[in-house]
């Protein structure tokens, strides 16, 4: 597939269909890849795709929004691109989506297949402009079993679990910075007037950051796991993003990134919305 | 070991409104012995602590020759400066310092001094101006060219008459836009500088102001024949510790807080454009 990919990108760049192509290249060893930015057709030979291509390249489109860009997307990453188009971050016609068939990606830290890849319904990408390769989608739907299991715990157990996780947090903001939908130029976490979040790094403040971030991305997060895999201290953020996906589905029957014309659940309402819990 | 982060406690003894957003504060240490032991040189800076809010860097506005108190002129721009503007006489603050290098006056004995300042930039030059005036016997002519957006934006208006009365001292004031009753020049500082046409012979130019003014003043001075070694300025950069440790004022191998803030243009030319 690499040869095919390189040829396609070379063609797109030569024909000026795209000014930049964002793909993957080999990084420091055979188990790691880095995002690669190519604007010279002759350099397309660097590009590749394999099971270590874990990054969601859709997040770079915000940086290159003024350019015509070709981006290599796994099936799951396409949801990100669609979500960003829905949020009017760039125009559909400026993006060439190159879908690559994917049998799942491996976390470089554990060497294991990502959990999201197990029951993946978009191994064969949907909605791309070009599709390379073929893969067989999983017949089983996405499983929320782990979230449901966690929900059964008492609130005390949950609080203790997160306390232990956020004690580890070093507030490097890798989770926020790799997040495709965390693109606010002036994040609440760095404002000083007023100071919402102190720079003091301790479990409570760290938890505050993650709570607010999760709330901010509700209905926009595509559960792409970029934040989870970026964490240098392995905080299982997936347990949070998956909860957001589950809630969006259960409360509002909504799925982020599925439709570029949709209204996200919190920016619309229905007069018949349920209010069972309101006194 | 002494705690380099621990400030001296001082009290606000006088507050003066200079312009719409600039106030001058006089501080005096609670401990008179500490006040006496606290000495600095024109060009250095201090770190002012507003307890409950934080600390920030300011330059001394008064020279070491008038050190019975510490004076700072502060423009309201951020979190700390906003809190400073809320201060009242008698309030406590913390002061640590002095930090940084200073204007090398000992090298300038027998020379003419040309000060060029814009807006609140005069706050950083007041200390070297008054130091030179207090030691006038060591220097020849002193020229002070000062401009601001409007006559209302000029700092230290009450000082000008005192400065002018000193022998061989000339004050040139300008405003970008004049107003009724304004008897001085109208125009941008670089243009006025060109008009005044100072001679570079035996002269040191000391400049401070907004970056755009500095850029054009530099050009004028070089056109007038000043060499880069004859031009001195003081840099503003985000600093936190003042001790060459916190890393944010690092430009090339220099730490502005420790190796600066006073630099000649000759030194600055070699630095990358990151200050």
């Amino acid at each position, binding site marked *: 597939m690499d040869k095919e990919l390189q040829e396609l990108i070379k063609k797109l760049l030569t024909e000026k269909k795209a000014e930049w192509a964002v793909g993957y290249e080999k990084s420091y060893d055979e188990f790691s890849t880095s995002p690669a930015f190519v604007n010279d057709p002759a350099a397309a030979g660097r590009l590749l795709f394999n099971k270590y291509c874990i990054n969601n390249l859709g997040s770079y489109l915000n940086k290159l929004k003024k350019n015509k860009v070709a981006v290599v997307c796994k099936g799951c990453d396409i949801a990100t691109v669609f979500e960003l188009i829905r949020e009017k971050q760039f125009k559909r016609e400026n993006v060439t989506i190159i879908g690559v068939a994917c049998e799942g990606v491996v976390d470089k830290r554990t060497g294991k297949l990502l959990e999201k890849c197990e029951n993946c319904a978009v191994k064969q990408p949907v909605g791309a402009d070009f599709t390379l390769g073929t893969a067989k989608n999983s017949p089983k739907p996405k499983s929320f079993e782990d979230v449901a299991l966690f929900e059964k715990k008492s609130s005390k157990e949950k609080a203790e679990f997160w306390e232990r996780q956020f004690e580890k947090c070093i*507030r490097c*903001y890798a989770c926020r910075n790799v997040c495709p939908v965390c693109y606010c130029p002036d994040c609440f976490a760095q404002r000083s007037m007023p100071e919402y979040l102190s720079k003091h790094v301790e479990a409570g403040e760290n938890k505050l950051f993650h709570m607010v971030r999760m709330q901010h991305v509700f209905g926009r997060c595509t559960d792409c796991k970029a934040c989870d895999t970026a964490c240098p201290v392995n905080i299982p953020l997936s347990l949070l993003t998956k909860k957001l996906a589950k809630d969006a589905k259960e409360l509002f029957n909504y799925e982020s990134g599925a439709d570029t014309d949709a209204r996200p659940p919190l920016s619309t309402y229905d007069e018949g919305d349920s209010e069972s819990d309101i006194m | 070991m002494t705690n*380099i*982060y621990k400030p001296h406690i001082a009290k606000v003894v006088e507050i003066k409104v200079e312009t719409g957003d600039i106030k001058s504060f006089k501080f005096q240490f609670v401990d008179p012995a500490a006040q006496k032991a606290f000495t600095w040189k024109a060009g250095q800076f201090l770190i002012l602590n507003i307890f409950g809010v934080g600390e920030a860097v300011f330059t001394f506005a008064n020279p070491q020759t008038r050190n019975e108190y510490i004076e700072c002129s502060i423009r309201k721009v951020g979190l700390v400066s906003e809190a400073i503007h809320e201060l009242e006489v008698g309030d406590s603050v913390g002061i640590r310092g002095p930090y940084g290098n200073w204007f090398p006056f000992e090298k300038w004995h027998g020379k003419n001094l040309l000060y060029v300042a814009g807006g609140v930039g005069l706050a950083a030059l007041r200390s070297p101006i008054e130091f030179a005036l207090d030691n006038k016997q060591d220097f020849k002519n002193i020229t002070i060219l000062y401009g601001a957006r409007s006559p209302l934006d000029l700092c230290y208006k009450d000082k000008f008459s005192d400065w002018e009365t000193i022998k061989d001292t000339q004050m040139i004031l300008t405003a970008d836009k004049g107003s009724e009753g304004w008897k001085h020049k109208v125009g941008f500082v670089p243009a006025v500088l060109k008009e005044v046409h100072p001679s570079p012979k035996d002269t040191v130019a000391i400049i401070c102001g907004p970056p755009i003014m500095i850029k054009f003043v530099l050009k004028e001075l070089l056109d007038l024949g000043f060499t880069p070694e004859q031009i001195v300025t003081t840099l503003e*950069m985000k600093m936190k*510790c003042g001790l060459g*440790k916190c890393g944010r004022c*690092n430009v090339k191998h220099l730490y502005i807080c420790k190796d600066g803030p006073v630099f000649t243009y000759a030194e600055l030319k070699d630095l990358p454009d990151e200050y």
Partner: protein
Amino acid sequence: MTYLISKENINALLTSLLAAKTVYAPKKDAEETVLFGKLGSAAEWHGASLLTHTTAKDKVYLQSESLFKIKKGKDGVQIEEPAEPEEIVIFGCRPCDARGFDVINKLFNWSNFVDEYYTKRMEKTTVITISCEKPESTCFCTSFAKGGPVNETGSDLLLTPQKDGNYFAEAVSEKGKKVVSENSKLFSEAPVNALQEKADFKTAAETKIVKKLDLAAIKKLMEPAFEAAYWDTVHLPCVKCGACTYVCPTCYCFDITEKAFDNLNSERVRNWDTCMSEIFTRMAGGVNPRTDTKKRFRQRFMHKFNYHVDNFKEELCTGCGRCIKACPVSIDIRKVIEGIK
């Protein structure tokens, strides 16, 4: 001073240290994160010679450190300095971690200003290092004059595993000698072939390090490369998080902030900061000399391998490779500086 300590006695040594001091050693949690944690018992030590996810730096140079507490009252302002730090032991770090302390010691003591918070803590810290048996694909410690899998710089006691599982122990400093003398029953005389074994260990470990950089040559290339077009594209994958700087054993930049509890009480806190952050150099009023992501990216490499060398005659890096592993987009610090032409 060289000794031998058997593998059985290592646990006894840990138990003995634990009785008197706080001991930090690599510990593994349920998410497989290995961090330097406070040991409750010797059994909690995650023995294998692993590259921990974060460094031991935060045990001496705390990520958030209270500088003093401020109390405002009727009789003015009182400044309350924190209590003296306790004695701690950092056990089982790699030589690259230990050398990190040596690098920042200099910084916290230069320019006539001694940082007493760091220095006092360092004085009360004993660093017991275990030579590195399993360098990873990200390691490049041998590129440094004072680096390498068995290098003792920054350590108080260096333990090098032997073929039979016992450890060859070298007391490098007074603090290291004290550990041995206080636990003399656990140490025995070093066998005659110990040094030879250490040399063999070193060779074996070094062959696993795939990359060795010529840092002097790179520095020469870096000086004129400030404006090079290279920086325009090389920074593009970088997402500007602070992971690389926070896991680094030598990055030292910090911020000083105030935490107010109420109108009368507050605390002055020093927090680690990162040059990758947009607000790092942003002044009150909004002027920022390094707004551009490219400039911030360049600053990190320039500082580590060029500017710091001018001031301290050594790089601000120990080659531990953590920044490469922690980087969410796998940016390789070695590749970046090697690419400078």
